[in-house]
């Protein structure tokens, strides 16, 4: 599943798909199967050892074995109809080896016995040996201790797969009805739930069993003016989350009130869709087309997460910096010499970015990464200065680190693990500041809520972002709704124009299920936290066109 498939599913893109035909999802199963416990951990160990031993016998100097069971549930509706209920399960094994100093990888669906495991291991070694003649320098791994037999479980309160489908259907049809009652012409809504049951065994003696959960409730509302043929949409302000069904428990303490309500650790889907339908109508009826020019931007966390993702998370991936992703995702402006100078001003002094693979409720949280390294948090940008990257075992030595950062990930048993973005978050301001106080200081600005269109160049300099809701700020007051807004900037210029950050009380996570990188392309889920933040003098364009 990737972003494009998901957009098709949401009806945001026209070419319809049948979910079971998305190959990466695996087989479709009875919903009860999603609650079956997977393979016993002792069996996993026995199978993993078979692959570890077979690889070693064929000459591998390092091996890791991932046994994965990946479960997905989608409930897909539009207006008063349930379009699809899909339960999928994918089980298989991926074996990665180093032989003759070179990586090799092979994966097999439904490997269930020692013979299958050994053959996968042998195939991985054969690939490594075939490719080693192209190698100039052998792969070097940072030393890694074995943890023995360990486990990690996401601290969820309610497993979403345990909630009856009827309850989920009722929720979504209720959401759709609320949208229609409030003036929407069309509404699509989806509940997307994930459980990754992953086991990794490595040559170093780690056998880690993990249980990871994610949930994403989302909708898309469309309002049409039949006379002019104009239409406007508004998407959910929910955040995909590393939580269970508890994310859908409505709790007043998780609501951030203001010109529109935003949500923290609990999401009120019914309330948000009601606002969405009214706002989409308002966009059609009265939003002013923006006048292009320089504005001070006040960016809500439901919007800013994506700007952080693209302009901070990606450029600080060490594999990109080194050129490993040059053929697709690209390289990075944040080159090693800038980091080595110890004075590269990534942003203003207010700007602190932390990488974190442990943050509770985030999409990136796990106990151990996909090469068996225990996770942690570390600084990327401190007081505006670039101080570190994101590195895994075969990269750590390049930046003088003694160990991996623990951010290696593969999106299935069938894909090879590589460096993926941890949660990267902008730390909240240290001085007390509310959104209202921030807006009061802005003379000519735009307040943006929700994520929209996004695009950035392959070295992460030039970007353009849209949103869901735009409000004009004049002399410290919100004066009305705008439309046709997108801002363009350059990463370093943008983060250096950061003039104020609200305090901890406003800190919230946003995120994506579909961070794409690698060839073949893989999706990774990642969260980004921030509080509402102000940027001065950013270039805004008008996106309205006639065809």
């Amino acid at each position, binding site marked *: 599943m990737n972003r494009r498939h998901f957009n098709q599913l949401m009806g945001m893109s026209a070419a319809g798909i049948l979910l079971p*035909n998305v190959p990466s999802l695996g087989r479709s199963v009875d919903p009860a199967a999603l609650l079956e416990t997977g393979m016993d951990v002792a069996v996993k160990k026995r199978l993993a050892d078979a692959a570890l031993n077979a690889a070693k016998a064929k000459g591998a100097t390092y091996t890791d074995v991932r046994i994965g069971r990946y479960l997905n549930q989608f409930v897909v509706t539009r207006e008063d109809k349930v379009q699809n209920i899909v339960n999928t399960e994918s089980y298989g094994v991926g074996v990665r080896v180093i032989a003759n100093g070179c990586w090799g990888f092979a994966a097999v*669906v439904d490997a269930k016995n020692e013979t299958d495991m050994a053959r996968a291991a042998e195939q991985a070694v054969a*690939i490594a040996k075939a490719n080693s003649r192209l190698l100039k320098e052998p792969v070097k791994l940072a030393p890694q201790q074995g943890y023995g037999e360990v486990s990690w479980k996401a601290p969820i309160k309610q497993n979403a797969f345990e909630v009856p489908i009827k309850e989920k259907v009722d929720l979504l049809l209720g959401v759709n009805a609320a949208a229609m009652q409030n003036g929407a012409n069309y509404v699509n809504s989806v509940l997307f739930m994930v459980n990754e049951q992953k086991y990794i065994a490595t040559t170093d003696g780690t056998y880690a069993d993990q249980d990871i959960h994610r949930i994403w409730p989302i909708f898309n509302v469309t309002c049409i003016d039949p006379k002019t043929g104009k239409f406007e949409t508004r998407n959910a302000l929910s955040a995909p989350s590393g939580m269970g069904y508890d994310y859908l428990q409505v709790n007043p303490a998780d609501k951030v009130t203001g010109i529109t309500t935003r949500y923290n650790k609990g999401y009120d889907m019914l309330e948000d869709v009601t606002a969405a339908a009214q706002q989409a109508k308002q966009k059609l009826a009265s939003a002013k087309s923006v006048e292009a020019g320089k504005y001070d931007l006040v960016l809500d966390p439901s919007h800013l997460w994506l700007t952080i993702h693209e302009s901070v998370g990606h450029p600080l991936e060490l594999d990109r910096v080194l050129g490993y992703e040059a053929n697709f995702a690209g390289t990075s402006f944040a080159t090693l010499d800038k980091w080595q100078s110890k004075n590269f001003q990534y942003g203003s002094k207010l700007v602190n970015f932390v990488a974190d693979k442990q943050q509770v409720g985030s999409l990136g949280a796990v106990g151990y990464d996909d090469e068996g390294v225990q996770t942690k948090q570390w600084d990327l940008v401190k007081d505006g200065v670039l101080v570190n990257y994101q590195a895994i075992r075969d990269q750590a030595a390049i930046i003088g680190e003694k160990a991996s950062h623990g951010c290696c990930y593969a999106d299935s048993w069938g894909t090879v693990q590589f460096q993926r973005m941890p949660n990267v978050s902008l730390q909240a301001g240290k001085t007390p500041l509310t959104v209202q106080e921030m807006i009061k200081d802005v003379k000519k600005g735009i307040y943006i809520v929700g994520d929209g269109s996004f695009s950035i160049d392959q070295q992460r300099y030039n970007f353009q972002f849209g949103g869901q809701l735009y409000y004009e700020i004049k002399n410290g007051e919100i004066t009305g709704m705008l439309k046709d807004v997108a801002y363009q900037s350059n990463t370093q210029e943008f983060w250096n124009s950061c003039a104020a950050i609200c305090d901890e009380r406003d800190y919230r996570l946003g995120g994506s299920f579909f961070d794409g990188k690698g060839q073949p392309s893989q999706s990774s889920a990642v969260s980004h936290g921030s509080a509402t933040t102000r940027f001065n003098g950013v270039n805004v364009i008008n996106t309205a066109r006639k065809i």
Partner: protein
Amino acid sequence: MFTPFEMAIILSEAEAKALLQKVLKYSKADECEVNLSGEERGNIRYARNEVSTSGNKINQNLVVQSAFGKKVGTATIDEFDDASLEKVVRRAEELAKLAPENPEYVGILGPQTYLKSNGFFQNTASITPDVRAEAVSKSLELTRAANLTAAGFMDDYRGYQAMMNSKGLFAYYPSTNVNFSLTVRTADGKGSGYVARGYSDISKLDTAAATRIAMQKASASASAKALEPGKYTVILEPTAGAVLLEQLFFGMDARQADEGRSFLSKPGGKTKLNEKIVDPRVTIYSDPTNAELPASPWAGDGQAQQKMLWIDKGVVQNLAYSRYWAQKQGKKPVPFPNNMIMVGGTASLEDIIKGTQRGILVTKLWYIREVDPQSLLLTGLTRDGTFYIENGKIKHAVKNFRFNESPVIMLNNLEVLGKPERVVSTESEGNYLIPPMKIREFTFSSLSDAV
């Protein structure tokens, strides 16, 4: 027990047919449809002039869909012994009985007649890790010798899809594919060039020749000068044009247009079907039997794919109608196509450059996103080789631009179409036949420092 190593993953037509017939014999539902597929994929990546990761993946699937009236259930299995096959049919039937009615379920199709399309090439099906390593070796030798840095990817597929249903429909399509892409950068990081090739038959893939193209673009783009953003005449190489045109292809859906939420919608619930929306020289069609771009002759629901005109001389000739939407609107169903071909002219890229007084040659575009679905306004950036043309000659490389442009506006500003070639989309990995296009007043809105 079946294991991937003890039985062929790619079944022949007769083997697939026999297996599917066996599954259907167990069905007690009103309707039953079975989909079967098997595939093997292999890939090799390289970067910094060295091989990096590579892999191999085997996968297969048998999906049973059972229906009682409009109640539909689906179940899947990968073990093909009799007991397992019966079990999967029973499970699909149980799920169907529990499911809510799907008002959009229109039933299964009867037997169909399919065009013949040859997309399976034994050469490609027989690729081994050594063949991949050899292909990459030819590329690496060239870049290493020239002190240029290569990052590339080769990915091959062999597999089949088959389906059969209780009304007698049977379809089978085996295919192979190999995609090769390469980015070459200069040692100082100031120049970058790209090439991508997609073929059904690997014997057409010449990684050395492709590498020379990327090397030439990398070297030529190393001393780029900045031009002011604004409206320019551009020549889009097919690799650049493909990522804009495919957004238009994806949008050719009748339901979205009828519902009033597409660039093909008009006020009052009408659509632009049968209306001229672009320059009369624009003709776009699909054809599963095209020898350069073979595609499956059937759609996912078993409908036959015909040669289909989508835009004829600038006029929207057809939109895709799902079987449900066609029934509701009283139209003939039209499946989404499995390939897309844009008719071009005879001019080569060089001819088009020669005929250009002032313009910009765009060889690749990157990070394409829709900004406004109403106008199909897209944004993205040029990448890996952008050049200024003056008096019919490439004068110098230019720094990359961000654009904001709609393919609908772009195809109204058409100047020249060249000779189509098969390209791989750098966004979706879809393969198309697309001509180079010369377009006036293409909107570049800002500069990028990226190389």
